[in-house]
């Protein structure tokens, strides 16, 4: 394939920092989680206890998957971190492919490269090679690291390769979605949707119980990771499934490449209206037009996620009341109180972190508009900088409430139907979800300040979410000091439902968010645009 080598080198050169951060980050989090799991469940007895409780609990099954074998630290790690870690590897992989294929095409840079001596398939292949390389390096380093920590090598590499295999599959998914759509944003949304479906399929399958559709887990690349049974049988042959799917996706993508023009998608764009609707009259109307697709997508996704998590809440109550040991584990993840409420509070905490992804995406739309030179023509009209930033920020902040409420309503509807109190649970869980709004607003404020003061570092907002994830969600597991966990705004949100809601933290978090927004506005008023 002519030109592949040069394109891969170009991509590695462009992404040297990004790739280093992903690889060091993923391997680092995995190994540090492994060593804390080792300390926390140091005795075979404590692990047995965990296995007896967590391994059979539908809530944990839905969130994390089955705990196949609790007799080793590796087995506990594979359960605690496998699915979530693999989700991140999948995300990395699909982002990398889009970044080097459709995004390059959209900006027109690929045309420049396409006119040079490179074969038609080379740019796509280069993107896939980079993603596969990154996933495989992460997988191998995780394997080496775990083996170095004294776990069985067979298990360590089964786990590492299962991690990597999710990256391979989503490199393939990214390669296909890059062909389907004309914009990188849409390509990422398609791949992200596939990743979401993969998570839900295995969540429903894992939580289904013996009578239910457990076969669903065999339809999901994340389910395959569980079926690999790292540290619990090490079924390497299961990895043939992701490899086969990866191959099929590559064939599909490379066939699609030959069937379309450079810059085009597979679906031809239809003609649209010749006149703008009445709603498209102001900066606000434009922001609505640009943000609504993302908001609707997130609202539906979090509603479904809430419903799936909500569907297993009642099972928690039934199966866990007899297991005080597990209560201790759950309370590390989120709160105290009645066990169902503890579970609900912890899933709402996770959903709040998802909504932080929405708020960063929505706020960084400002930066995308600026770098793609679409802010300039708008700011050359009487639209003030304040109105332009404000209209996008309004969707970010109000949208946070919408997506969180949707998740709470989804959980409330399903859980309510099972306990016979739909109205009550909907209000209760929507309220609980909305309690997290001030913390998410702080994230929006940080993203806005970065955009306004150091626009080139706007994407550091994503790192902020990861830091809050590590501090807030993994903090108790990693046994961090309280002051470190307190740095995350999510730590200060009452663990609702269950805990008492005090207005204090909600008010001062809102005040911090407001102060950040004010700094953002003032900073953007003073800086150069473009």
């Amino acid at each position, binding site marked *: 394939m002519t030109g592949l080598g040069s394109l891969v080198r170009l991509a590695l050169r462009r992404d040297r920092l990004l790739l280093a951060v992903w690889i060091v980050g993923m391997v680092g989090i995995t190994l540090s989680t492994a060593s804390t799991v080792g300390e926390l469940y140091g005795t075979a007895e404590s692990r047995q206890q965990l296995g007896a409780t967590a391994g059979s609990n539908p809530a944990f099954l839905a969130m994390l998957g089955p705990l196949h074998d609790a007799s080793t630290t590796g087995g506990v790690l594979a359960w605690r971190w496998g699915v979530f870690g693999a989700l991140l590897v999948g995300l990395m992989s699909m982002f990398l492919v889009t970044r080097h294929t459709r995004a390059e095409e959209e900006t027109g840079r690929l045309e420049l490269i396409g006119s040079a001596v490179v074969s038609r398939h080379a740019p796509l292949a280069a993107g896939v090679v980079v993603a596969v390389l990154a996933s495989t390096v992460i997988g191998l380093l995780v394997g080496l690291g775990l083996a170095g920590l004294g776990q069985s090598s067979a298990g360590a590499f089964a786990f590492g390769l299962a991690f990597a295999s999710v990256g391979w599959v989503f490199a393939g998914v990214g390669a296909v979605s890059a062909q389907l759509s004309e914009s990188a944003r849409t390509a990422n949304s398609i791949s992200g949707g596939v990743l979401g479906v993969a998570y839900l399929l295995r969540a429903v399958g894992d939580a289904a119980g013996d009578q239910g559709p457990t076969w669903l887990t065999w339809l999901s690349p994340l389910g395959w990771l569980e079926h690999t049974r790292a540290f619990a049988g090490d079924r390497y042959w299961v990895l043939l499934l992701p490899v086969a799917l990866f191959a099929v996706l590559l064939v599909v993508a490379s066939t699609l490449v030959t069937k379309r023009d450079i810059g085009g998608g597979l679906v031809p*764009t239809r*003609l649209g209206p010749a006149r703008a609707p009445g709603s*498209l009259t102001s900066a606000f109307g434009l922001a609505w037009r640009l943000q609504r697709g993302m908001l609707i997508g997130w609202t539906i996704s979090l509603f479904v996620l809430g419903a799936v998590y909500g569907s297993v809440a009642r099972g928690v109550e039934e199966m866990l009341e007899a297991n005080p040991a597990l209560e201790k584990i759950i309370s590390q993840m989120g709160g105290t109180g009645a066990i169902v409420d503890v579970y609900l509070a912890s899933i709402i905490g996770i959903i709040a972190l998802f909504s932080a992804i929405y708020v960063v995406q929505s706020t960084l739309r400002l930066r995308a508009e600026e770098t793609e*030179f679409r802010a*300039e023509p708008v700011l050359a009209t009487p639209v003030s900088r304040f109105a332009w930033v404000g209209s996008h920020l309004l969707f970010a902040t109000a949208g946070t409430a919408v997506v969180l409420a949707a998740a709470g309503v989804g959980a409330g509807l399903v859980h309510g139907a099972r306990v016979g109190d739909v109205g009550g649970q909907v209000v209760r869980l929507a309220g609980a979800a909305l309690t997290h709004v001030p913390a998410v607003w702080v994230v929006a404020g940080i993203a806005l300040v970065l955009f306004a003061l150091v626009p080139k570092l706007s994407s550091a907002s994503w790192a902020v979410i990861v830091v809050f994830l590590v501090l807030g969600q993994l903090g108790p597991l990693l046994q961090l000091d309280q002051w470190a966990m307190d740095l995350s705004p999510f730590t200060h949100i009452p663990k609702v439902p269950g805990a008492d809601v005090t207005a204090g933290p909600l008010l001062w978090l809102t005040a911090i968010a407001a102060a950040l927004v004010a700094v953002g506005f003032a900073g953007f008023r003073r800086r150069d645009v473009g």
Partner: protein
Amino acid sequence: MTAAISVSGLVKTFGPTRALDGLELTVRQGEVHGFLGPNGSGKSTTIRVLLGLLRADAGSASLLGGDPWRDTAELHRRLAYVPGDVSLWPNLTGGEVIDLLGRLRGGLNEKRRAELLERFELDPRKKGRTYSKGNRQKVALVAALASDVELLILDEPTSGLDPLMEAVFQEAVNELRGERTVLLSSHILAEVEALCDRVSIIRNGRTVETGTLADLRHLTRTSVSAELVGAPNGLADLPGVHDLRVEGLRVRFEVDTDHLDTALRALVGSGVRTLTSQPPTLEELFLRHYEDELPAGEVKGAMSS
């Protein structure tokens, strides 16, 4: 006549690069003003300062009597801007963008909108991502030309347009002559010659020449070739005559436009049989400004940037 745009001593630096270095620019009310300079000379930077998108480091800029940085929104009500590289929202149609930009500026002239769409042969129903560069440019042009504003700021507005559309653009600007003030940055010399009342030429962030085209022509040489009745007399000693070549009764020379008159008198003194004179072309005029050797200090600056 009052100045629509008046810029003096403007400085703008980006890190080590000095993009504008004491730029001067005056655009009179109602004129079409050509803004020329080689790539990277600071034209777009100047325009962005005038639009309040960039903040100048030093110097003064006044736009329609206001401060472009402070009175941004107020001033933008009275102007329309066409960027050099128009980027459209992929999901919005051309028609929607035209309406949006028009409405943001406070309304469009509906009749002109329809008429311009027809003249530019632009299909407003296509999505932003499907337009070619030229068609994206047309979307921004229609939105700007159909707005009832006092000032048009056009940054290389016809890059990407075919010659037919270039003619449509010139026609449309000519129709607005007198009603609107236009600042037109351009590399297309025929366009500048056809449209502009006055021009400013900048290089390395500094204004090197400004005036009417006629004024600028005076700064260059006319080439003359003639067949004389008698031997040429004293031509070589005349001021402003260069590259004189005499072959018997034929003479060829270049003369500074200011000294054309004296040179012609000298020719007439010998008796003229045939005469061709070539006025300086705009290309020569601009190339002279574009190609000038960089002074030593600036070469260093340009290389470090």
